[in-house]
């Protein structure tokens, strides 16, 4: 007997169709998930299955232009815990905490974390002795891994330029920060597939992505010069106990920084031992202050370029002051310098003379040259925290502001701006962007990846004017205020500066930044050196007294280290009675003993050899010796 109820039969059919239809919908959904969402879900699934073990890249090394290592890496032990493998957490925590000097509660918390491995912060980059102690404990699930740690082999040497890297090898300051991206490289990893309990699933291939080592950074810094500079700063520090010292050495023809140092300095490995202001501020590029007389170089260059002055032929009378717009601006020398040529104005660093030059230029011209020489804007050096300095707003420049600016007061500049500007004045007239990084090198291939070349910003003055500048500034050293920077044979040119420090809009009494900027050799400059000493004690606070000798020492030793040949045709040094007299050795070869007697000699003679005629002499002719020194002569018979 069949069910004959029509309604029931109809509805059974409906139920069958509806049921099959729902199964069909579910099958469609299954297909949608597997085909349309398939790729997305597969990616997400792989993410969920994969575990990464990071591989740290080696941070790039920093070296000087000759390859001397300045920042490198040393391996440092680091403590890891694998919580799953620790058998007795309480005991392990106690022993570990004791060696690492940490609260044992904290150690316990760390080693019982639900993670595949835990780094103990107190156990990061510990000493090898400590690591040995921990190994000796033989704790299960505690491992010592090798981590690399930044090492600065020269300590506080060049510290402000190099900066330092933190515990995670991340650049925090200086070049380490500026070139962090290039130095740090890229993390690599081994990716493996694991089950949800962290165990490896063997049937899936591991993905290995090797770490990319950081690039090595080669600097323009020359350790030979840097060493000389650091030495001179240490001596000055001991001698004058100043508030600070700044020194920069640069190649004027390229903008390459050869040395840069300042005091107070710090040891990058223990930077936390000094105040943040010390390691945060790289004074040669950060600090801004009134340049003082070194700024007169700019005024002079502008006046020469514009043809407003003839150094030799024009005369200027300095009564000791100049009246400008009702104000009386005094010369640094009481009573004034009297009548002098403009070359002597430069040599004497005579303020009224420069006011005159400023007036001849007019404020538009004067300020346009100041800007062209790069003041009022960052030089663009590849170092952190560069200052900009402040210039008068041109609309607000009256006669007084114009006059003071002409001799370096009322403007605020950075040391690096001065170095760049003076380099432009004496290198033929081109302003270069200073830079510290020379090359980035791939450590594996040794290939140069990036090379910084000199960047000429603009031509500021002509070669002709620049030549006059070199002559004028050489005479400042030979015959003017910069005499203490004189290096025999190397034709040093330069300018002193004594800047007043302003605090809250008022000048401090007996507190100056005394500076000297020098260059050599004057015929073809290869080195510019700036030294600024902040508030030296126990001395006359004058750039010619304090800073010029430092620049002289740096200049002489550095030029010799660079292999620069001494020059003969230098401007003679004007003698002061304290200076020993230097006499040029004459050419005596070929003279007979009789003739020799007729030559007036202020030297002792050490003779050797048989014969009547001089065949050889030391030192060679042209060398200058102190009065009364000994020269050796060899005699022969022609």
């Amino acid at each position, binding site marked *: 007997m069949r069910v004959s109820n029509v309604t029931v039969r109809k509805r059974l059919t409906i*139920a069958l169709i509806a049921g099959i239809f729902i199964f069909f919908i579910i099958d469609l959904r*299954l297909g949608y998930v597997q085909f349309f969402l398939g790729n997305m879900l597969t990616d997400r699934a792989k993410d*969920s299955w994969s575990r990464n073990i990071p591989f740290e890249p080696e941070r790039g090394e920093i070296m000087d232009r000759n390859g001397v290592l300045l920042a490198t890496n040393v391996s440092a032990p680091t403590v890891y815990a694998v919580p799953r493998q620790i058998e007795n957490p309480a005991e392990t925590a106690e022993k570990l905490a004791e060696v690492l000097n940490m609260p044992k509660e904290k150690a316990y918390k760390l080693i019982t974390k639900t993670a595949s491995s835990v780094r103990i912060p107190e156990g990061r980059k510990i000493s090898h002795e400590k690591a040995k102690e921990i190994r000796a404990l033989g704790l299960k699930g505690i491992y010592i891994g090798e981590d690399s740690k930044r090492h600065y082999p020269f300590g506080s040497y060049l510290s402000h330029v190099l900066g330092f890297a933190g515990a995670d090898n991340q650049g925090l300051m200086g070049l380490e920060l500026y070139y962090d991206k290039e130095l740090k490289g890229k993390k690599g990893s081994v990716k493996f597939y694991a089950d949800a309990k962290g165990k490896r699933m063997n049937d899936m291939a591991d993905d290995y992505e090797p770490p990319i080592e950081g690039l090595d950074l080669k600097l323009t810094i020359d350790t030979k010069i840097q060493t000389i500079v650091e030495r001179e700063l240490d001596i000055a520090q001991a001698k004058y106990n100043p508030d600070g010292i700044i020194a920069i050495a640069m190649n004027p023809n390229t903008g390459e920084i050869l040395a840069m140092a300042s005091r107070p300095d710090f040891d990058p490995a223990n930077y936390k031992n000094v105040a943040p202001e010390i390691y945060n501020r790289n004074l040669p590029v950060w600090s801004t202050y009134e340049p003082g007389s070194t700024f007169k170089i700019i005024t002079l260059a502008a006046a020469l370029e514009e043809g407003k002055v003839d150094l030799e032929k024009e005369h200027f009378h300095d009564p000791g002051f100049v009246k400008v717009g009702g104000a009386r601006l005094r010369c640094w020398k009481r009573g004034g310098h009297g009548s002098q040529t403009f070359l002597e104005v430069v040599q004497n660093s005579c303020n009224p003379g420069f006011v005159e030059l400023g007036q001849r230029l007019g404020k538009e011209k004067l300020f346009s040259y100041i800007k062209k020489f790069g003041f009022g804007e960052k030089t663009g050096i590849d170092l952190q925290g560069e200052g900009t300095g402040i210039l008068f707003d041109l609309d607000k420049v009256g006669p007084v502001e114009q006059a003071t600016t002409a001799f370096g007061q009322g403007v605020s500049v950075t040391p690096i701006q001065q170095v760049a500007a003076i380099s432009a004045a004496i290198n033929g007239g081109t302003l270069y962007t200073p830079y510290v990084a020379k090359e980035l090198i791939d450590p594996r291939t040794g290939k140069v990846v990036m090379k910084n070349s000199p960047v000429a910003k603009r031509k500021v003055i002509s070669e002709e004017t620049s030549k006059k500048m070199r002559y004028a500034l050489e005479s400042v050293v030979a015959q003017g205020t910069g005499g203490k920077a004189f290096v025999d044979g190397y034709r040093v040119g330069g300018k002193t500066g004594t800047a007043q420090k302003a605090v809250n809009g008022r000048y401090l009494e007996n507190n100056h930044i005394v500076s000297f900027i020098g260059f050599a050799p004057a015929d073809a400059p290869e080195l510019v050196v700036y030294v600024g000493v902040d508030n030296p004690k126990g001395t006359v606070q004058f750039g010619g007294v304090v800073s010029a000798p430092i620049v002289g020492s740096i200049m002489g030793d550095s030029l010799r280290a660079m292999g620069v040949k001494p020059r003969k045709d230098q401007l003679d040094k004007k003698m002061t009675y304290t200076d020993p007299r230097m006499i040029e050795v004459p050419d005596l070869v070929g003279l007979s003993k009789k003739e020799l007697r007729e030559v007036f000699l202020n030297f002792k003679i050490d003779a050797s050899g048989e014969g009547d005629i001089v065949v050889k002499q030391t030192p060679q002719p042209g060398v200058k010796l102190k009065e009364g020194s000994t020269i050796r002569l060899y005699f022969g018979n022609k």
Partner: protein
Amino acid sequence: MPTKKTTPDMILMIVTFTLLAVGLIMVYSASAVWAEYKFDDSFFFAKRQMLFAGIGVVAMFFIMNVDYWTWKTWAKALLLICFVLLLLVLIPGIGNERNGSRSWIGVGAFSIQPSEFMKLAMIAFLAKFLSERQKMITSFKNGLVPSLSLVFSAFALIMLQPDLGTGTVMVGTCLVMIFISGARISHFIGLGFIGVAGFVGLVLSAPYRIKRITSFLDPWQDPLGTGFQIIQSLLAIGPGGLFGLGLGQSRQKFFYLPEPQTDFIFAILAEELGFIGGSFVLLLFALLLWRGIRIALGAPDLYGSFLAVGIIAMIAIQVMINIGVVTGLMPVTGITLPFLSYGGSSLTLMLMAIGVLLNISRYARY
């Protein structure tokens, strides 16, 4: 006995055994990792499932030979026993709590879920009730209200445990039976409105529920909470593709998908055997549905017809909800996939229900 017995529906039997075989293989594949980890025996769950299948098949053949009218005679008594059990299970000390639901009575392996038995008892009783008063079912007062009150009182008891999955399947099955028996469509529409109104009221009284219910639409909103199981399930199904990763090659069974051998076994199946495998299983269930409805159409009396519909509707609804949940079409309810999921009482009861269907088929004329 109006008619002579013939051979049972062989297609139904073959489909059932095929599902059973697929189920046994998949339970082993899905559970091996867990079993190895928990019991040091990768066959732990597979061996037990094998035993349950054995018991279930024996029970199925036994029941296949028990005339289905027997259940009509015993329906009232079975229903009463089940009501008593549903009350007892709520009493702490008698009912055991597992996963937050007090659903079990008994000790260890001999535990049973009264709600599972209630499903079958309700089908048997409702088939009797509806076949005896089929003429009255169009009446709201004398047909619809009494049957629905009975169903919803059982549902209320089940929801006290709470066991939403079983409750939903039972109500769904009963509604299908009432629909088949000839209830007015207008009544169903009215019921639909009441349902919607009740749902809206529930949501308004506690707005957080809506989030819980809709979280399946975007499980990634709460990947470690409400979305966790669905995400893990989708992460299994998705990579399966057309042919799957191959039998035994599932990755999600490595502790990612919780208890992969029970409610989410279809996810592992779709991961290992792909769209082809998943569609094959769905096809088997569709065949089962077809044979069940066919038996209902050929049943010698209304009781047999309603009983067959009840059984096949229960199986079909359970399949729809389970796979719907696994593929992310529905919120998670916690229902096993008939014949495939690991679990003794579920499997044996399903096979017994097929036994009843087979018995009806022996009297069917098409």
